[in-house]
């Protein structure tokens, strides 16, 4: 199996004096569906940002796809807690933001997109059942629909690893079920690794492997695997 995330003696936080969490050993492989659960402020989001190369680890080893350097364009899909959508823009434009990872910077900035990029946008929108909302500004959509747009943006990107930060929060049970099902179907059929962060243990157990971040005797929290 291909190692997607490999962490040993990893300390995450903002500085050596303010360590949030320690990860002794973690191995996540291609196709794994993993959740990380823990209370607010314990370091879950920071860990996700470390994996996404948005924040550097304080110390230790963290390799993503076998390297500690930034991965190739489009390999990591990140869905932040508040989704990170451009609210004034249409569904199409938001999903296109993900799809442009599949073409050159010159193409993407000039606006002369390749046909395959446009096809990816349409496919992702169709897959998330948003075709009738394609020209709607995102701000006019419901919470569940906005989450679908965020997933469609990531799908259009064609990533090998998806990091989703509490993307099921503030949704009713039925919508959670729908959004989760859509995401799971996509990652399983494409052998994509999915790491979600959750503070709700029930939702975290929807994943196949579940890790818990909790305070030990030390000042920082420790990551350990729990039964899913």
């Amino acid at each position, binding site marked *: 199996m291909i190692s997607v995330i490999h962490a040993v003696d990893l300390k995450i936080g903002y500085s050596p004096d303010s360590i949030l969490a320690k990860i002794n050993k973690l191995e996540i492989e291609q196709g794994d569906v993993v959740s990380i659960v823990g209370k607010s402020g314990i370091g879950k989001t920071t860990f996700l940002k470390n994996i996404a190369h948005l924040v550097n680890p304080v110390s230790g080893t963290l390799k993503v796809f076998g390297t500690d350097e930034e991965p*190739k*364009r489009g390999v990591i899909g990140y869905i932040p807690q508040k989704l*990170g959508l451009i609210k004034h823009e249409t569904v199409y434009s938001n999903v296109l933001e993900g799809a442009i990872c599949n073409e050159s910077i010159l193409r993407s900035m000039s606006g002369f997109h390749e046909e395959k990029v446009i096809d990816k946008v349409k496919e992702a929108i169709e897959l998330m059942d948003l075709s009738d909302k394609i020209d709607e500004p995102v701000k006019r959509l419901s919470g569940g629909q906005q989450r679908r747009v965020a997933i469609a943006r990531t799908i259009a990107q064609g990533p090998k690893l998806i990091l989703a930060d509490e993307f099921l929060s503030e949704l009713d049970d039925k919508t959670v079920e729908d959004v989760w099902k859509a995401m799971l179907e996509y990652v399983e059929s494409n052998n994509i690794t999915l790491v979600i962060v959750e503070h709700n243990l029930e939702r975290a157990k929807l994943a196949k492997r579940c890790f818990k971040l909790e305070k030990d005797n030390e000042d920082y929290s420790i990551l350990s695997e729990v039964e899913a």
Partner: protein
Amino acid sequence: MNLARKKYPIFISFILFTTYLVFVDLVDGDWASLENSLENLSTFFHESLWPPNWKVIEAQSYPTCDRSWDFLCSPAYIGIMETLKIALVSTGFGFIISLPLATLASRNLYSDSIALPFRFVLAAMRTLPSIIWAIFFVILVGLGPVSGVLAMTFYTVGYLGKLQYETIEGLSNDPLDAAKAMGLNNGEIIQRVVIPETANNLISQLFFMFEYNVRHGSVIGIVGAGGIGYYISTYLKFLQYDKVIALLIILFFVVIAIDLISIKARSYFVDDATFKSPSLFGNIFRTKK
């Protein structure tokens, strides 16, 4: 009543008392200079300022003007139109130049080693008021509207650039994080995230800057940089204060008109949730609903 509210009277008294002390220090015991001020003002007003001389809206003899309607050849019209044109061009140029500089000065897009020098450049351009830039450019390119445009453009870049980078830095981290994690470069992030997310504020600031430049356009004309200020300056030199007051009254109404149009136009961009269309009077006398 909470503690903060109890402290308001003490705070206001402190400010008033401090202001009074500083004023006394500035007057430096020379109270006599203030004694006749009201009388002087009254004399000046009745003998020199009032009534306004409305010849400023009649055609001037030089330079020759072929337009059929007298008003279109008057100093008031020519001056105001030139001021408006200077403001329009300098706001446009200023916006085009300031936006790339502001993105480079934003610390959520670029590291401090890049952002701080650009902030320094913008601060330097802002430090000199437009009238000083106008003096500089009048020396450099001579009297006329070109030096006015250059002066106002420089000041606009500094001022608008600061407003723009503050807006960009106020962006939520989430869209930026999502784009950075995808591997988009800064150019793509600016094009696809920063500009769409801040567009409403950027347009609103553009209107504000135009309005500001119209007001300041009258000042820079005084040093020979074109516009209505040129005529004000000329009349001041010949002690024709009645013409100056006439021009100032016209300028006042033009600025009010632009201000109202600008507030109305900006209201379409500031709040993205609903398009509101306030009444003109509502802009001045806002009432709580």
